């Protein structure tokens, strides 16, 4: 008789003698699916970057590395990512502290507003800023030039610094949200005991508070760094036309210019390897600088922390916070809406130039309606499939714990660190008939497959966290009551993690709806997504029409977010 030591793997092993082991089936399904969805595309990139028709051929790779445009793109990518990370982190920490620890008024409202940039697609923001401060034709630029009688445009957003500025304004919430929640959960006596020890308020902030939230800062900074390195939208809109490339926009350019030929895709694969190397280096560097230890800072009885009185600085800081919000949230929004009413781009923003024609065109065009349908289809399907698949992987990793669970975990998390552009190349290589004999290229299915690979880790993470909360004794109690392994899974575990599964769905559905990085390389004539459609309209010079569609997209996003917030509020968590 085998002794049962408390893991459900052991319990399952006892079952296994009697019937076909369901756990083994689930484990096998996980491995096969992850192999097809994640591993093969990645292997294909590496293979195609270095091999051609079965023979090692380093020519393409070396050529790409030598190419000066690519080197400068790599340099730009690094500059932008590091700049955005440093500035975004400072901004995020500052506002997190202001809202979490000071007596600034209207905290709840400001906190909600500071989260808006998080749900807002950055490339729409880039569009708005381009309309205002384009180095040649920006509206506010023209206004300022006339006002001060300048010869040149005062501000040029089409620069590395412009790109950094726009990325910071959309990425600082990564740090802000992490740090605010860490500050809230932190035991206030940790700070109080420093005061008792004789430390002044300022010393407490530097020596106790900041070091204790360092893991949160570090996690947020890492998110900014990897997101920015892989980001396509903002540098494409602000830099592309001015010859400022980053690696993701270079990959797009190479493939776009080659008209989708295999040679172009191979060059893209070589560039992808470069980008992956840069991302890995950045991760290592970040790890060195901010080695993230995790402390147990949630302890003790809950006491509200002593809020720091800002006294004289209260009003100026409040004004600063409000101005920041206006600048990064309201101004771009207003600009896009205003432009969407213009008869033609470049006309002055006065009432006689306003029309609703752009909206009529947008809704009359099949391409636009199709793009909304495509986005809805791809993101809902991806959300649902990932929700179940992610939960399956999470269950196998957390509860069944087979041999090789570590590999399973790493594979499912891999796309999280791999830029969307790179993943798209891999998906093209894998699904254009070259290995499976199935050609999905130019269909909506290839976009769906890419979304699955890209977003699987999201749902796996949420389900994993929820499963950790479900103590194995709960399932064991069901077994004692006579339920089979399958029954206890269906009646106990699944209902308990259902809320997490649903939020996993929305975590995928919402970003997929506004996504452009992945689909820009995968769309075909009839399979544009919402993001791609806006991008193409703008690229074709139909800027007011792009703005009108962007306004519609923002409307959809706001409605969806409101529904999600309502749903998650009403639901009771595990």
């Amino acid at each position, binding site marked *: 008789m085998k002794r049962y030591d408390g893991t459900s793997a052991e319990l399952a092993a006892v079952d296994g003698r009697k019937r076909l082991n369901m756990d083994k089936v689930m484990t096998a399904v996980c491995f096969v699916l992850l192999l097809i969805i994640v591993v093969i595309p990645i292997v294909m990139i590496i293979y195609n970057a270095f091999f051609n028709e079965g023979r090692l051929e380093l020519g393409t790779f070396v050529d790409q590395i030598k190419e000066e445009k690519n080197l400068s793109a790599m340099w730009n990518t690094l500059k932008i990512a590091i700049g955005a990370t440093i500035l975004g982190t400072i901004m995020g920490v500052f506002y997190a502290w202001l809202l979490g620890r000071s007596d600034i008024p209207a905290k709840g409202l400001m906190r909600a507003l500071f989260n808006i940039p998080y749900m807002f697609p950055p490339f729409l923001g880039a569009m708005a800023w381009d309309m205002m401060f384009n180095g040649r034709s920006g509206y506010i630029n023209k206004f300022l030039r006339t006002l001060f009688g300048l010869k040149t445009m005062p501000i040029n957003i089409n620069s590395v610094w412009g790109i950094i500025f726009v990325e910071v304004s959309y990425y600082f919430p990564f740090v802000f949200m992490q740090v605010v929640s860490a500050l809230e959960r932190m*035991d206030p*006596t*940790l700070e*109080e*005991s*420093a*005061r*008792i*020890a*004789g*430390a*002044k*308020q300022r*010393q407490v902030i530097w*020596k*106790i508070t900041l*070091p*204790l939230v*360092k893991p949160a800062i570090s996690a947020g900074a890492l998110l900014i760094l990897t997101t920015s390195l892989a980001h396509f939208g903002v540098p494409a809109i602000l830099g592309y036309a001015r010859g400022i490339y980053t690696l993701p926009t270079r990959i797009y350019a190479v493939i776009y210019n080659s008209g989708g030929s295999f040679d172009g895709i191979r060059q893209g694969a070589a560039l992808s390897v470069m980008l992956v190397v840069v991302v890995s280096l950045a991760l290592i560097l970040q790890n060195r600088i901010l080695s993230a*230890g995790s*402390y*147990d*800072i949630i*302890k*003790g*009885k809950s006491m509200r922390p*002593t809020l720091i009185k800002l006294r004289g600085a209260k009003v100026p800081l409040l004004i600063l916070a409000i101005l920041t919000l206006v600048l990064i949230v309201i101004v771009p929004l207003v600009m896009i809406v205003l432009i969407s009413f213009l008869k033609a781009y470049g006309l002055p923003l006065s009432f006689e130039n306003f029309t609703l024609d752009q909206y009529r065109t947008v809704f009359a065009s099949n391409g636009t309606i199709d793009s909304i349908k495509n986005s809805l289809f791809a993101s809902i399907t991806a959300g649902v499939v990932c929700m179940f698949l992610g939960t399956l992987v999470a269950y196998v990793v957390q509860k069944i714990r087979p041999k090789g669970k570590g590999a399973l975990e790493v594979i499912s998390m891999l796309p999280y660190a791999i830029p969307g552009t790179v993943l798209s190349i891999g998906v093209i290589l894998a699904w254009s008939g070259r290995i499976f004999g199935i050609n999905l290229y130019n269909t909506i299915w290839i976009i769906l497959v890419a979304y699955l690979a890209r977003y699987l880790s999201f749902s796996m993470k949420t389900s994993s966290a929820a499963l950790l909360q479900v103590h194995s004794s709960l399932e064991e109690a069901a077994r004692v009551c006579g339920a089979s392994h399958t029954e206890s899974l269906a009646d106990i575990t699944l209902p308990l993690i259902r809320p997490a599964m649903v939020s996993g769905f929305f975590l995928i559905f919402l970003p997929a709806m506004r996504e452009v990085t992945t689909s820009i390389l995968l769309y075909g004539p009839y399979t544009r997504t919402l993001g791609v459609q806006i991008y193409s309209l703008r690229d074709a010079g139909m800027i007011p029409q792009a703005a009108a569609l962007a306004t519609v997209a923002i409307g959809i996003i706001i409605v969806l977010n409101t529904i999600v917030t309502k749903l998650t509020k009403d639901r009771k968590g595990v």
Partner: protein
Amino acid sequence: MADQIILRHVTKKFTTKTLGDIVAVDDFNLNVHEGECFSFLGPSGCGKSTTLRMIAGFEDLTEGEIELCGRLVSSSKKNLYVPPEERGLGMVFQAFAVWPHMNVFENVAFPLRIQKINKVDINRRVAEALHHTSLTGLENTFPSDLSGGQQQRIALARAIVTNPKVMLLDEPLSNLDPKLRETMRFEIKALQRKFNFTIIFVTHDQSEAMAISDRMMVCDMGRIMQIDTPENLYNKPCNRFVHNFLGESTFINVEIRDGKAYPKGHPEQALDLPVPADAAREMVVATRPNEIALKGPDGTGFTTHIEKRIFLTDRTEYLVSVGDQLLKVQTPHRVAFSQGEACSVHFVEPMWYPADDEQAEKERHRRQLV
């Protein structure tokens, strides 16, 4: 002995969204002597923690003033408020509040580093503090690798390293297991003898407070109920709340008629007790269960019967029916009655209090929701 901590008319009001105004601390007047170990005792919501936090300087007061070591540190009239770091206190928190990002040495050295003391002195004084708390050898260990008891010692070492005159202990033992609690209690007392600081000890555990304190303050619902030595508090509690809060108690509600006390719900037989002259019409007779004698029904005392017999380890407990009330009596095992048997009850110097105030009970409940 000089008074080291003086509270004069200290009052703290909070406004909450759901429950309106709460007077958390209502007109506290208090003198703690130098070298004394003084406990704040009471149920949650009684104002003991708030008072401690006002002394520490984490909360400002609404009215009144606080003096520490002859120096005014909080005063509503003079609009004076000295921040915690300038009050020169030592403090140990319930959750220890040991900084997880610093090792043992750095935790203990922190107060000295803030004072910009030179390295040699820091090393010497930290070593000394670690020696007194039996932590020598653990300098480079991080708190997460240590047990609860050891983390508590770090907190203690950090508090004594500056050699403060006043030590505030906020339920420092309640996160430890019972055995360890007793050991730490002795260690705290030993440290007090060695460094001669004044202790304010906040707890809701009465036996802990009794064991450690020279004097204690029992408070309830933001009011001071009684301040006295542990013995006096136990033997002469000033009201029903204090009686009930310290040690085991049993109560009988009585009605006074013709100078005799009749238990409620049993108007025929009076208790065999002299009624105090100033008694109101309704009173409560309070006593300790082990201070009641139980005898056979010999015509003396109050004749009744045993309702229930409970065998405890070191004594037997009887629930005796007195009218529709139950009186708790504890006797040595040799006094043996069986369930339902007739008996007589003899009180030994019980306390008399005015009858229960329902309003007070409601207020207590409301506060505990805060």
